[in-house]
């Protein structure tokens, strides 16, 4: 090894290299690729060019009202309308959030769908979700929907043990009858291949996909079958070299290349049982699946689904621009969810109350010198959330002065220096050293002290408080 070591010269660098093309700060950090990825499939090397994602029509689809509701008390109709309206704003006029799906079984389900459509938004397009039962197409037709999801479970756990089919053929015939019923009803079927990452790929999934493609040849393009790959238990693996059925790259390649399912008709739906949900979704995008199905804040069955807002940030990072996305709507959606009693953990990325709050004094010191040192991107511009510090005994004067400056909204030359906050800093330290406190200090407590120690600033900047 030592013989082949490369020597690396240390050039004289007098100006910082901030890599601003990758970390522009007014956008999330960019994801760039510098070469193809090679995956061995059936013993043959296959190249994937991830950079092509920039030019593909990748989209986000939403299942907040379907899978998202399976883990929560039901939303009221008004709540669904509000969320739909904000989803439309978030995804923007280019339809980055392309579709959202609704249950159709109850009066409230149908009322919510009608009221959302009355808003007149082009995106997200409303689609349905029904069981693989022919009679359910009446609901889809009556609702006037052009597309619906159908449950077509495909692992043998489901085929034999849940649905009690006696063979793969019997199961496939049954599913295909329902697909034909969709065609007959003039509704595009989106087959949800439940539990696909635990399925018999060669002996069920691929033959089923072949048959769906054959059936699609006989109908107009707008009715042709879409396939949603449902990683029902979160078993999917993103790593190259992983074997089927868990390999997301191989699964997508086989459907895309071997079965001829176009990328535009492939969708990934994940679950977070193994903490892989977001990266698995992004992996599906990169390997040729155009649609990533997600829910707001990852709310969904058990451990949840790919978080929609995470997919939005990933989208911007891959595309290199906002593409019409209104990221501020993420914060409005988070505030709204909290207001209706749905908890978002404080440290939850992009939306939790403390996602960009530091408690470490040394980080606060960095923030004070240059926000970019400890803020992931311009969270004030993109999310309406400037970086903040939470005050504990570890905050130090740097943390306290940052809090004071943010609290009074002081910018540039107006900002108070550390020396001026010494009385507040002393009060904070005494809370822990003298009073024996073990909890963080709330903003309300600090505000009261700020009023006491900085009466002039209070009078100038907080007269309306």
């Amino acid at each position, binding site marked *: 090894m030592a013989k082949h070591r490369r020597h690396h010269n240390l050039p004289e660098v007098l100006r910082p290299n901030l890599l601003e093309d990758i970390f522009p700060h007014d956008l999330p950090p960019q994801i760039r690729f510098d070469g193809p990825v090679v995956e061995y499939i059936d013993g043959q090397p296959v190249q994937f060019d991830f950079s092509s994602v920039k030019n593909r029509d990748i989209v986000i689809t939403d299942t907040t009202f379907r899978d998202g509701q399976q883990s929560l008390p039901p939303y009221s109709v008004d709540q669904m309308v509000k969320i739909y309206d904000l989803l439309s704003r978030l995804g923007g006029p280019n339809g980055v959030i392309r579709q959202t799906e609704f249950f159709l079984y109850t009066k409230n389900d149908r009322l919510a769908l009608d009221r959302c459509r009355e808003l007149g938004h082009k995106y997200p397009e409303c689609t349905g979700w029904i069981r693989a039962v022919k009679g359910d197409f009446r609901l889809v037709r009556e609702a006037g929907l052009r597309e619906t999801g159908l449950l077509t479970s495909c692992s043998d756990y489901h085929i034999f043990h849940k649905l009690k089919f006696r063979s793969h053929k019997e199961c496939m015939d049954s599913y295909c009858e329902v697909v034909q019923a969709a065609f007959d009803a003039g509704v595009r079927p989106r087959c949800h291949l439940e539990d696909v990452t635990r399925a018999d790929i060669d002996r069920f999934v691929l033959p089923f996909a072949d048959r769906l493609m054959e059936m699609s040849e006989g109908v107009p393009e707008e009715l042709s079958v879409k396939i949603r790959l449902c990683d029902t238990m979160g078993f999917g693996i993103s790593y190259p070299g992983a074997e089927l059925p868990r390999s997301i790259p191989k699964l997508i390649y086989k459907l895309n290349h071997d079965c001829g399912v176009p990328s535009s008709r492939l969708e990934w739906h994940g679950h977070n049982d193994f903490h892989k949900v977001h990266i698995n979704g992004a992996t599906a995008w990169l390997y040729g699946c155009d649609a990533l199905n997600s829910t707001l804040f990852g709310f969904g069955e058990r451990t949840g689904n790919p978080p929609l807002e995470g997919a939005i940030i990933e989208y911007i990072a891959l595309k290199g621009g906002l593409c019409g996305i209104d990221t501020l709507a993420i914060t409005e959606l988070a505030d709204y969810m909290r207001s209706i009693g749905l908890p978002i953990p404080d440290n939850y990325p992009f939306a939790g109350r403390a996602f960009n709050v530091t408690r470490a004094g040394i980080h606060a010191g960095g923030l004070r010198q240059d926000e970019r040192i400890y803020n992931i991107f311009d969270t004030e511009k993109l999310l309406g959330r400037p970086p903040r510090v939470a005050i504990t005994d570890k905050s130090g004067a740097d943390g306290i002065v940052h809090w004071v400056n943010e609290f009074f909204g002081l910018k540039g030359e107006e900002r108070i*220096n550390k*020396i001026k*906050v010494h009385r507040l800093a002393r009060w904070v330290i005494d809370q822990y050293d003298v009073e024996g406190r073990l909890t963080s200090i709330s903003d309300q407590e600090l505000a009261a002290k700020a009023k006491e120690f900085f009466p002039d600033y209070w009078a100038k900047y907080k007269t309306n408080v």
Partner: protein
Amino acid sequence: MATVEERVKMVTAKVLDLDPERIHPEDSFTEDLGAESVQSIELVAMFEEEFGIEMDEDAALSVTTVGGAVDFITAVCKEQGVDVD
């Protein structure tokens, strides 16, 4: 009138709760006199109050010894027209 050194020692003794006789010009505020992070800020604030001056935060906090503080404060007083002779 007390000298700058005497006044610096007096403020230091008060902030760090020490006997002024124990404080020497070569003493480091942190290593010898045990000043903690917040006490360093308090020292600078109290020096400003004692001498009626305003000090640059970074420059003031980079002073490490009592003697260094005497020199630094003397220079700032001179700059800002504060008579300490």
